[in-house]
């Protein structure tokens, strides 16, 4: 999952550049990888790829703002759905 997320973030926001410029814990906002539009692109990707439905009240940096947070969030959502 991490690899899929990293691949998407690198392709979509960094256009294949600087693949190793951020760690799994780095804030995507602070690293200036994702902006206000980027969050929406990211959510569309999560919904499409992992079949999760991101609720409005889940639109929080603590859920979405690093690879590790995304992994935790998706796992939590998948468990809840199961």
């Amino acid at each position, binding site marked *: 999952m991490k690899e899929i997320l990293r691949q998407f973030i690198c*392709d*979509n926001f*960094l*256009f*294949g*550049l*600087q693949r190793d410029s951020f760690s799994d814990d780095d804030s995507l*906002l602070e690293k*200036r990888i994702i*902006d*206000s*539009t*980027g*969050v*929406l*692109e990211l959510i569309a990707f999560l919904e499409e790829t992992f079949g999760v439905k991101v609720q*409005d*009240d889940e*639109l*929080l*940096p*603590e859920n979405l*703002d690093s690879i590790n947070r995304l992994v935790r969030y998706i796992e939590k959502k998948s468990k809840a759905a199961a």
Partner: protein
Amino acid sequence: MNMCGIAGIIHPPQAKADPGRLRSMIDRIRHRGPDECAVYAKDRVGLAHARLSIIDLASGQQPMHNDTGTVSIVFNGEIFNYVELREKLIGKGHRFRTQSDTEVILRLYEDRGEACVHDLNGQWAFAIWDAEKQSLFLSRDRLGIAPLFYTQVDGAFIFASEIKAIFADSRVARRIDLAGLNELFTFWVNLPPRTFFRNINELPPGHSLTLRDGAVRLKRYWRLRYPDADQLSNEMSEDEYAERLLDLLVDSTRIRLRADVPVGAYLSGGLDSSVIAAIVRKFTETPLKTFSVTFRDAEFDESIHQREVAGALATEHREVPCSYEDIGRVFPRVVWHAEKPILRTAAGPLFILSQLVRESGYKVVLTGEGSDEIFGGYDIFKEAKIRRFWSARPESKMRPLLLKRLYPYLPMLQAQSPEYLKAFFHVADADLSSRLFSHLPRWELTSDLKMFFSNDVRRELEGTDPYADLERQLPEDYDGWDGFSRGQYLEAQYLLPGYLLSSQADRVAMAHSVEGRYPFLDHRVVEFANSIPPRLKMKVLNEKYILKRAARALVPEAIRKRSKQPYRAPEAKSFFNGGAQEYVQAALSPERIRSHGIFQPAAVDRLVEKVRRGQAIGIKDNMALVGVLSTQLALDQFIDHFGEVQ
């Protein structure tokens, strides 16, 4: 009066001016002055002029000389107070041969020397050769409305209204300045005198230049000033400010109607152009034709508001519709006229609009440009105010929500949760103490585009710091101004001349031989506006408050109370809607990206793919595409294949 093109060469002593060389220079900018063209070559001095006749059609020819032939001038622009200056000079014993404002500058120079610029109210770029002093005097208007560039090569000093005329002299090397590119991908503009091209300088707004004995001396004769933050006082009531402002605007508009040809006006549908059109209709006897651009895409279209103003003021109104394809189609020509990379397509519709003006038989239009800078209308000022307000109480949940109100026209932002809003607009302590606070979000966002720069370009730019370069240019009293004024200064000193008045105004209007006039940029209006206390310019979050008050009896209420809609145009969609235009594919192909060496081919390819899929919805991606494309086109047109424009 002559909104025109000028060019010239001052050779070292003993060398001879070559009329053929001057002719080829001025031919490059004949769009600026298609009515007449003249070249003057005497000894080491060459001057050239392309004229768009607007006042004194019969006798305003240039280059113009004084009675003894010792002082010669070429002039691009308008001196709007020439009538009054002429009378004064006649009173002092000067005799005039023509009715032109060109001769007024000439006589004034004879009278006052280089200090003549202080008396001028207008928009100008001129060059005066003084044979007795063997010196050249160049001057550019206070706000940078008329363009002027120069370079030195083999001991010759070369100047022109546009860079392409300088490049017509084959001795001048056509190379890009990577530091200039870096500035454009930070500020959207260059910090003059730097330009996008190496060794090509721009005379900064409010400056004069003297060339004597081969040495160049720049002198700032005017600049923007604001009151010290600790000396802000309400010298007048709100109504008094509004009344005084209206008086000034009426006079500034009135003298900008001086012309021997009819004067039209742009209507955007917003407050500023409406105020100007209303003043023409209500305070003068002038019939008025108005011009607007409309968009097929409702997201950008303002035709309802434009028609409302035109109807209320009973102007003869004309519109030109603009589609994505139109913007894509004209873009290469827009870049050719802008002479640098641009990050937005907004100049395209204005290029199309000036064509409509020209086809309607008009040469002169009034516009509302400048109002947002001098009265504090832009969202960037509001955003900075909210960020400051919020940072005073960082734990507040309500304060960041004001940011949502700020951008009602950006659906992406409206979709954000409060937590994300806080994260996006988070104010770091370091930002708060930055002298460039108001502009950091925009400039940081723009700087993100540099990730597309090739490794070679990055290496070249290592150790450079555009922010530090800009800070070195800030005036000594800058830090004493309040935050609002500092933001206004950055906007009016840089983005206004470097982008809005050039790429989006003079260049695209002159492309069709149309002259823009800007009543808000009369220096009396600017100086008065700068004296209004910032808290009245933007009252709480109500922008341009004093202007709105001044416009109460002029402009329909619906227009006055409309929430501000910044002028925008479709970006990436303009190039890929219904298949990429052929030139876009060629310019962005990996081979061409590689051959120019500025960007990374694989990254650009991924960006293009994202745009093609319709997934490039954010500001950054759109700006990246337009920036990369315009850079590639500028390199094609100016470096590799000079003058070849699709």
